[in-house]
């Protein structure tokens, strides 16, 4: 079919196609504020051209479907950055709580060391005063308690991270199950030749939530979307989800097992889960080790000073502090309760304060690690503060990246009401001009008939 008659069919097709196009625009505008909504663009196919003499007439267009405007690379970058930020946020949140135990509040180790040092100065001035001797024991007990409290705070934070592992794994399993179901729906809709945009949006939103929980690798395969953890453990393949499990390990912590029962804890990176595991298994244990080492070395050093002198009963000084072999800071305590057992004298004579200098020196002399107890503790405080600060800085920096990426995705996939409005007004103007042409062509009919008759 050629010539002008062909255009009659084209116009008929156009009317039907227009309905679909307007429907897509309306849907875009209605969903302008829907989180995760991806703008849809009508897809048209051209029918073959026809020629009448030297005039080529188009064959019209058919609406073949609606295509969501997505940038997969941007989506992957956003997922990756979201995982990193979530990990940093998790660590920042817990470390800020831990940090409060390292600040000077009176019951902290720095304050307790200072009070213990002051009590020894007073002892040097009043070696025979039982009250002053008792003051040394009391301040020693306070120092031990400060070590206990700090260690317990770190252990508590570790336990909190451990609990978060279990909770996060449960959330991951819920999400992967939902994503697998949506994958199945996308496949069914695609097979039926229906629009999958809305379902894909829902799935993308869930994948985005999942990326907050753990680092992901997302691939498009023949079976639909395949999602694995960063190390390749499958979470979703097509319409099937693979459940993660947790079990108590030999260290008393929750370990993550893949669907086959393999322990994948160490390989999980990023996201809330990766952040919790890193904090629980690396960061906090690192602090605890330093604190234990400090408690142990200081105890050894002070007890050695105590052993150099004699107590008020003329006996060689016995151990002042004690620490267990494991968990020194948590188990640190003062072993003597009798003030007369403080080894004040250097020679066993009454009124001598010769050994107090040795006791005080234990607080200022370098420990085996090379620093005094105060310096070593200050270094630990600095490390905790730096870790908390770094996590926060990292989160902020990633947040800036995410903002830019989300803006880019918004410009690709989002709906701009301003742009739609401007275009609508331009369409109106064009329609009004076209309507005048329509009117002219109508009037032309009778003129043409007269002209050629």
């Amino acid at each position, binding site marked *: 079919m050629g*010539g*002008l*008659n062909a*255009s*009659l069919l*084209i*116009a*008929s097709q*156009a*009317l039907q196609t*227009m309905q679909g*196009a*307007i429907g897509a*625009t*309306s849907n875009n*505008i209605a969903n*302008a*504020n829907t*989180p995760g*909504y991806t703008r849809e663009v*009508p897809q*048209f196919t051209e029918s073959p051209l026809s020629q009448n*003499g030297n*005039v*080529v*007439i*188009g064959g*019209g*267009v058919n609406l073949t479907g609606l295509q969501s405007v997505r940038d997969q690379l941007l989506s992957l970058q956003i997922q990756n950055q979201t995982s990193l930020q979530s990990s940093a946020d998790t660590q920042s949140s817990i470390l800020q709580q831990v940090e409060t135990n390292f600040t000077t509040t009176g019951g902290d180790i720095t304050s307790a060391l200072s009070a213990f040092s002051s009590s020894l100065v007073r002892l040097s001035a009043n070696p025979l005063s039982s009250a002053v001797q008792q003051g040394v024991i009391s301040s020693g007990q306070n120092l031990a308690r400060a070590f206990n409290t700090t260690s317990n705070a770190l252990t508590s934070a570790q336990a909190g991270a451990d609990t978060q592992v279990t909770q996060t794994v449960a959330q991951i399993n819920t999400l992967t199950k939902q994503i697998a179901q949506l994958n199945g729906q996308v496949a069914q809709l695609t097979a039926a030749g229906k629009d999958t945009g809305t379902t894909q949006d829902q799935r993308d939103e869930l994948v985005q939530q999942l990326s907050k929980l753990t680092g992901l690798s997302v691939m498009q395969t023949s079976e639909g979307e395949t999602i694995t953890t960063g190390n390749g453990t499958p979470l979703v393949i097509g319409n099937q989800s693979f459940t993660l499990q947790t079990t108590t390990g030999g260290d008393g912590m929750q370990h993550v097992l893949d669907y086959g029962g393999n322990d994948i804890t160490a390989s999980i990176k990023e996201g809330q889960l990766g952040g919790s595991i890193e904090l629980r298994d690396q960061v906090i244990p690192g602090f605890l080790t330093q604190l234990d080492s400090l408690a142990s070395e200081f105890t050894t050093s002070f007890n050695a000073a105590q052993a150099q002198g004699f107590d008020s009963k003329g006996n060689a000084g016995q151990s002042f502090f004690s620490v267990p072999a494991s968990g020194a800071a948590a188990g640190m305590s003062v072993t003597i309760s009798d003030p007369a057992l403080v080894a004040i004298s250097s020679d066993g004579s009454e009124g001598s304060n010769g050994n107090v200098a040795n006791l005080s020196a234990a607080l200022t002399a370098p420990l085996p690690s090379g620093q005094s107890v105060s310096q070593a503790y200050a270094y630990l405080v600095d490390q905790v503060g730096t870790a908390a600060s770094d996590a926060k800085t990292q989160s902020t920096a990633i947040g800036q990246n995410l903002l830019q990426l*989300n*803006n880019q*995705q*918004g*410009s690709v996939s*989002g709906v701009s*009401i*301003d742009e*739609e*409005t401007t275009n*609508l007004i*331009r*369409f*109106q103007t*064009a*329609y009004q*001009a*076209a*309507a*005048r*042409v*329509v009117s*002219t*062509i*109508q009037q*032309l*009919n009778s*003129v*043409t*008939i007269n002209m*050629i008759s």
Partner: protein
Amino acid sequence: MIETVVQDRNRKLAEYLQLLRLMAFELDRAMKAMVQNSLTALEDSVANQQVFSDRLGELADDLSRPASERPVPSAPDADRGLTDQISAASDALQNLNRRYSALLKHSSHSVALMVSLFSSFQGQMQEDSGPRLKQQTWSCQI
């Protein structure tokens, strides 16, 4: 003299026919542009339609002047084949024009509805700030 007049009239009729066909082509192009939401193509086509429409009007005025006003009182019939083609083209263009008119009315109504929806909006829009910031920005009343 008569031959020259006939030739001139046939030339104008041929141009007229060509313009009818071009106009049909433009209506076809405009309809495609409308269904594809291709604004630039639509504006371009409408501009062409206006040019063709003006020229068709001029030629129609010229060619349909009463015989008494013509330079030669009884000009012989123009090329019969040409007038048949013009007749067919004109009929087809009229049919096409009716479809085009229906499409225009339909589209104009839809666009007018959307414009009125937008104009009724009284809140604040936050655009181009990422999808997250769009969550609580837009509503309208019908």
